[in-house]
């Protein structure tokens, strides 16, 4: 096991900045953005100015290059304020900038990373299709080579930030005879002719984050914008998700922490039977369980992030962190509503939003079922 779970002074300062920023700038507008479905564009600009949008991008390409551990510290805080803003940041860093950093040519890195670092370009990640979610390797979007270009056709579904993003990491099939080995990854710009945004989804939660279809109709993408080599796209997509999942664990922990904070506040105020409800053991035990499971999830997340930063294997640890944190988060948000009673069911209190937002963490970047398959496969092989 590399470095401990104790935060360095630098990491504590990073966490403090994110904490203060979330409290001052995100918490006050989160409910309104959720209600109106407003994408938090100005906030993202401020976040980029602080370095939050370039946390994995090396300094040579204009980023702060701090790594995944610092990234999850910030993501937890941002998600504590607003999960929609949190997923936008997570996707930009972990799913869009990361594969470009790891698999892009120097030319591609120079073209995209400095502008992604300043937030001028916003990133997204397109793997899922209507017919291929958990079974991502069965994807059908096609790319055929034509001189110095690949011509893309097909439709991607459920793409986070799809309506606003400028740069997409897109997985497409370049060889129909192969399954996972027939897939390649490309960096596609939103102004590519033949590329358009399809249906915008109406969702239970994450209402200030867009989830859209992407439509490719003979979209011509320069061949040099491939990540890795032809046929490596699925491997790249999965390796990228190892990092992304740690970010979703951070999202889940952030939502759970917000649920706990709101619950403690309410338990200290609400009175029934002439007493604060926080004096009832039934409520105290809920709070104790929430606090304990949040810490457990956070430690799993820290471990996975430290391993990824150390360049050590972490697929299993990332899956465990994501699985545990997401299920924990849903329990915490559920209990938060319960502690608030009828008030918790109203939009007047934030726990109603936490409850809706927590739900997605068990679904995207691999469902809980898929993570249990991944984890158990590693246990039973040999």
């Amino acid at each position: 096991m590399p470095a401990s779970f104790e935060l360095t002074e630098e990491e504590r300062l990073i966490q403090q900045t994110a904490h203060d920023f979330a409290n001052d700038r995100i918490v006050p507008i989160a409910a309104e953005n959720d209600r109106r479905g407003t994408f938090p564009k100005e906030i993202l600009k401020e976040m980029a100015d602080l370095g939050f949008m370039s946390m994995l991008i090396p300094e040579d390409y204009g980023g702060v290059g701090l790594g995944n551990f610092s990234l999850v510290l910030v993501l937890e805080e941002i998600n504590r304020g607003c999960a929609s803003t949190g997923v936008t940041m997570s996707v930009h860093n972990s799913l869009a900038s990361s594969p470009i950093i790891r698999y892009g040519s120097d030319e591609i890195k120079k073209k995209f990373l400095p502008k992604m670092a300043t937030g001028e370009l916003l990133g997204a990640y397109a793997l899922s299709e209507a017919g291929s979610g958990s079974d991502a390797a069965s994807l059908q979007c096609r790319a055929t080579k034509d001189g110095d270009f690949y011509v893309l056709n097909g439709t991607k579904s459920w793409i986070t930030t799809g309506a606003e993003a400028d740069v997409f990491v897109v997985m497409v099939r370049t060889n129909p005879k192969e399954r996972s080995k027939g897939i390649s990854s490309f960096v596609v710009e939103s102004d590519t002719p033949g590329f358009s945004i399809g249906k915008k989804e109406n969702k239970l939660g994450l209402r200030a984050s867009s989830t859209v279809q992407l439509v490719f109709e003979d979209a011509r993408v320069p061949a040099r914008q491939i990540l890795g080599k032809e046929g490596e796209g699925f491997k790249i997509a999965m390796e990228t998700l190892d990092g992304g999942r740690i970010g979703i664990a951070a999202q889940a922990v952030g939502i759970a922490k917000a649920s706990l904070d709101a619950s403690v506040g309410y338990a200290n105020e609400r009175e029934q039977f002439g007493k604060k409800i926080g004096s009832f053991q039934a409520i105290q035990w809920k709070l104790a369980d929430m606090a304990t499971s949040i810490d457990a999830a956070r430690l799993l997340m820290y471990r996975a992030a430290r391993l990824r930063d150390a360049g050590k294997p972490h697929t299993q640890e990332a899956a465990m962190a994501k699985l545990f944190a997401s299920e924990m988060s849903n329990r915490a948000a559920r209990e938060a509503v319960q502690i608030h009673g009828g008030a918790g069911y109203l939009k007047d209190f934030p726990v109603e939003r936490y409850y809706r937002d927590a739900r997605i963490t068990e679904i995207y970047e691999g469902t809980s079922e898929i993570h249990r398959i991944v984890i158990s496969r590693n246990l039973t092989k040999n």
Partner: protein
Amino acid sequence: MKIGVMVKNVPDTESKIKLSADRKSIEMQGVKFVMNTYDEFAVEEALQLKEKLGADTTVTVFSLGPERLVETLRTALAMGADAAVHLTDPAFEGGDSIANAKVLAKAAEAEGFDLILGGKQGIDFDSAQTLSAVAEFLGMGQAQVVTDIEVGGDNTSLKVRRRIEGGDEIVDVTLPAIISCEKGLNEPRYASLPGIMKAKKKEIKKLGLSELGLSADEVGAAGSGTQVVGYSPLKERPPVKMLEGGPAEQAKELVRLLREEAKVL
């Protein structure tokens, strides 16, 4: 211009404050310390002055206190301060505002600041004495509770706006001087991630009793004229009582309660 900024760290307002068993001190374990809110305005103002006045202006933060102070000094460096001085010595422990001001004044004298900024008060013990005392020890002019600072043309004076009861007072201050900062002066910046990374490489200078040329009996508990003998928490507010019945009945009951229970009528 050489600007010094006095910063202290105080328990985060989100922390739960507990008294020690003997009620003579605050339980420090588990309490998170952050930069005093009003000091953030002081650091920000110093940085804005540096941006305005140009490269030969320097910002040095300085403070007296235990090891945990380092993080607050580092935060100021991450916000953009150039240097930090940490005044630390076992002899400094247990000092009251005046004893601490003696140490801070010595350090400020050695640094030769043209302008010293600080928060109008610490949000922990609310004494609001240290800055004034430092000004007295140094024989400098001072303006308290300032919400606007303008530098005079030749950098030798300031025009400041002070919050007073019912309005503002505008004061000319000759440098060197000490200014205490009030909310409204500016919007403190966050320590950005690049700023935090840069701050790692900046040195925090440590100075103790001997470096400052002080003797143990004039500082810390030994040099203090006051001593805290105890803390007592506020009485907890009794639960809210809702009155029942029609308006007339409620009014009658309210008057009865105000007379018999609250004894205010």
